[in-house]
């Protein structure tokens, strides 16, 4: 036993070393850069930044757009969570699965989808212009806050539905029954029993949505335009456009500090959401709608949700097809129309993305398995200490990470500027917490009696592992792999900062195409987005098919 414990902590050294080099080292450089740009300790940059108008505007905008997005998301998600938790209706499992799709969609795809639906050249505008013979597009949401809020709500509604709805579904119906029998009206019971019990889950979900919106980058960059800048966008602007590295470092530091505070509050809220209630199976607590108002409510909520989630994606797919020649934009992706020999056909980005995603999947799977095994085995101090460290990359914003890479690997001792390996390494880091979180419940769920039973029935230790442990965690491994793959395919923030111009990934290529004028570029961007969407949706269906627990357990 003792030997096994030592061995597993030794295995954990590999992921720890990886985290040290590719996560902590870049972040430490960011911190050093903001504190001690000239080699000595100096707090001035951190203090003077507060005087900068752009900084105060970005900070203010980041906070209020995240708050507004969270409020909108909760307003849309809570009724749906209620319906999924308390009603049984045909096709529920499928609908529930479909609502999770946005969760795995890259920001570039979502942005392109909303442009295809609500943008100046979007479906809705073209339809209205054709119908009423308008000379100009009537809906002008592009580059307003509204499109950003809608896109954020689109992204995160499934988080609320999953977290709150899941918790709600497992609440014992007898609690409210008891309150009703004791004389409480339907609304009294909701406010005095259900809501207080749900509140930790709602707060946890709200904080998670807030964190996602707080670090939102791609959506704001594409849909917001130049006048809207979150801290994340501002870091990118300072570092890449203006090349003011010190300012970017200070911004990153502020961003890091704030996200870690939100993370800490979130994990506390999440522990509170895990109150030991008398948990009921979800099937037990859901009943079919009987009354007409009930049926109408269920129908409208589910229908509205599906429409809200499906319409942008369908418009994206439809808009990517050119009218006389449907596949024209897709073909264009692979052609070199420019006479420049430096031109990279966007189609190459597909190859790059697949390559990087494969590498990142392999690497994060190896590191994640080692880590999850160590965590599952260790009890007590070691586990308490390791667990948060593993989760830290979730809290670091992608752009900060990318910026850290620029600082860390652009010069000796690790000069990797010319090498494309930085991209899969960054993706591995982003996927790593997801992999660990997917594998950990499966590994913890392994009943030690199973392998003991196998041993007593005559299986030697390695045989017991192969026959029992491996097949059981196999599904979790598959889910983790698909998760890592989709995360890597969609990663945008860090990639935009570190990808070599000649090695763009699909999201980066979409961003470049969208930033260039012209119908051809626009069409190609939509075509590429559609392809990326299909890859991620396929990954999502694999996850849904094979997952063991709930996804989104973070």
């Amino acid at each position, binding site marked *: 036993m003792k030997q096994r414990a030592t061995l597993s902590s030794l295995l954990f050294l590999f992921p720890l070393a990886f985290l040290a080099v590719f996560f902590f080292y870049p972040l430490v450089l960011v911190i050093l850069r903001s504190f001690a740009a000239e080699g000595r300790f100096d707090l001035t940059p951190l203090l003077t930044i507060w005087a900068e108008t752009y900084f105060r505007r970005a900070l203010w905008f980041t906070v209020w757009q995240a708050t507004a997005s969270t409020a909108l998301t909760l307003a849309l998600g809570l009724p749906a969570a209620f319906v999924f938790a308390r009603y049984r209706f045909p096709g529920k499992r499928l609908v529930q699965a479909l609502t999770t799709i946005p969760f795995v969609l890259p920001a570039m795809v979502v942005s392109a989808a909303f442009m295809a639906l609500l943008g100046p050249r979007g479906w809705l505008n073209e339809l209205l212009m054709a119908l009423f013979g308008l000379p100009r597009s009537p809906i002008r949401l592009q580059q307003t806050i509204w499109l950003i809020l809608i896109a954020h709500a689109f992204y995160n509604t499934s988080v609320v539905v999953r977290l709150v709805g899941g918790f709600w579904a497992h609440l014992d119906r007898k609690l409210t029954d008891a309150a009703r029998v004791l004389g409480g009206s339907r609304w009294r019971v909701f406010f005095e029993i259900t809501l207080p019990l749900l509140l930790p889950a709602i707060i946890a979900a709200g904080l998670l949505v807030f964190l996602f919106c707080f670090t939102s980058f791609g959506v704001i960059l594409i849909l917001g335009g130049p006048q809207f800048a979150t801290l994340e966008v501002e870091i990118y602007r300072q570092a890449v456009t203006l090349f003011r590295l010190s300012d970017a470092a200070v911004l990153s530091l502020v961003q890091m500090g704030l996200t870690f505070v939100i993370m800490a509050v979130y994990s506390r809220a999440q522990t509170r959401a895990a109150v030991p209630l008398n948990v009921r199976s979800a099937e037990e607590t859901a009943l079919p709608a009987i009354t007409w108002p009930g049926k109408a409510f269920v129908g409208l909520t589910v229908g509205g949700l599906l429409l809200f989630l499906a319409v942008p994606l369908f418009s994206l797919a439809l808009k990517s097809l050119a009218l006389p020649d449907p596949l024209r934009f897709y073909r264009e992706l692979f052609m070199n129309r420019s006479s420049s020999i430096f031109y990279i056909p966007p189609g190459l980005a597909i190859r790059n993305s697949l390559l990087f995603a494969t590498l990142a999947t392999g690497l994060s799977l190896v590191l994640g398995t080692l880590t999850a095994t160590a965590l599952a085995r260790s009890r007590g101090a070691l586990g308490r200490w390791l667990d948060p460290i593993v989760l830290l990359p979730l809290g670091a914003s992608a752009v900060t990470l990318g910026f850290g890479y620029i600082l860390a690997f652009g010069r000796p001792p690790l000069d990797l500027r010319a090498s494309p390996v930085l991209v899969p390494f960054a993706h591995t880091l982003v996927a790593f917490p997801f992999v660990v979180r997917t594998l950990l419940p499966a590994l913890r769920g392994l009943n030690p*009696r199973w392998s003991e039973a196998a041993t*007593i029935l*005559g299986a030697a230790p390695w045989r017991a592992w192969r026959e029992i442990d491996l097949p059981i965690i196999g599904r979790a491994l598959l889910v983790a792999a698909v998760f890592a793959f989709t995360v890597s395919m969609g990663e945008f923030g860090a990639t935009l900062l570190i990808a070599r111009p000649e090695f763009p990934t699909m999201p980066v290529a979409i961003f470049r195409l969208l930033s260039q004028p012209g119908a051809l570029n626009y069409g190609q961007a939509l075509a590429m987005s559609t392809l990326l969407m299909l890859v991620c949706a396929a990954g999502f269906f694999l996850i849904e098919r094979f997952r063991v627990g709930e996804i989104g357990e973070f």
Partner: protein
Amino acid sequence: MLLEVERVSKSYPGLPVLHDVSLTAADGEIVCILGPSGCGKSTLLRIIAGLETADAGRVLFDGQDMATVPPHRRRFGLMFQDYALFPHKDVLGNVAFGLRMAGLPGAEIRRRVQEALTLVGLSGYERRRVTELSGGEQQRVALARSLAPRPRLLMLDEPLGALDRALREQLMNDLRGILKQVGVMALYVTHDQEEAFALGDRIVILRARPELGEGGRVEQVGAPQKVYRRPASSYVARFLGLHNLIEGQVIGPWSGGELALASAPARSGEDLAAPMPRADAFDPVLVQTSLGVLIAADLTRPHAAGERVIVLIRPEAAARCPAAAMPNVVQGRVKEVSFRGSYHLVRTEHAGGIVLTSEATVAPDQIWQIGETVCLRLNPAAITLLEVAESNWRSSEFDICGHSGYDEGRLRRSHKPCQTIHA
């Protein structure tokens, strides 16, 4: 073939588990290891299986020391309390597992799986997923899986613990039938004396005393009837649900002069003049207790005058009788009555606050009313004397009126106000 466990001790840091435990089991014998939770029963099985190592002591099978034999080569079977069925394999896959590990050919495996499933009454279940089975069916699959490789020794760790009462009753009977039919040597761990009585050829009662820093040790070994009739200590008596335990002092041999009085016909007309048949022919003695002078006739050894003893009055001892001043007739007030089908469970309070629990035969003319003062005659043949264990008195309180019956609380100190005898 013989299993010998020799003076096995085990402790985890700060937690003694087993203390010097020895036991044997012979071919075809079912030995029940009975004890409350936390007395180390499961650990004992795990040590025998080789899943844990003992700090001291040996496990011998067929004369061979098992210390160097890894668990997967011992050819033992162990049925876990939660069954530990492999969730990713169907019934066939589970039952066939041990046979595959033994390297049997496919045809033989299929035949043996078939045989095992028929034995437990689950033929036709081969392709069912184990997660879809009911608790009773899972239990049967686990049994079939353990039996299929024909283990030299089958260990069962509270195999009925997770099932509801009605199912337990049924499976208890089936289980003994199956084990006897196969003729396998079996160790059966349980905390339920009913199960132990129903299944065991022999019972080993374990007792842990964590307050003394002592892990489980063997308190008594014997055939079920013998253990019930002659508990070795007041601990065993209480564990078996016998709660009428009173401190007493032997006056001397009973001359027989008062026999006529003591066994005057009871109201119900039954004649107790002919006492229950006695296995051992020790002369009855008179014992002074707070209840009065009692005649104890069911003795395991001769008792000298002046000896301190614990008097065990079995619940079937009492019958109503007319008031009379003579040995074995006690007066008391009815505190609780509950109807249990074939008998009334009656709790009566007597002089000095002593409470007796009796199982009174249901008779049409007998009505027990709460608060009523009644006279009970205690059959001398249902009264036995136990040794005064030093530790009982040392642990300062001696609960003589804990819950009767088979409720969970029987092992704990009663929270009801009750009489405690201090040393």
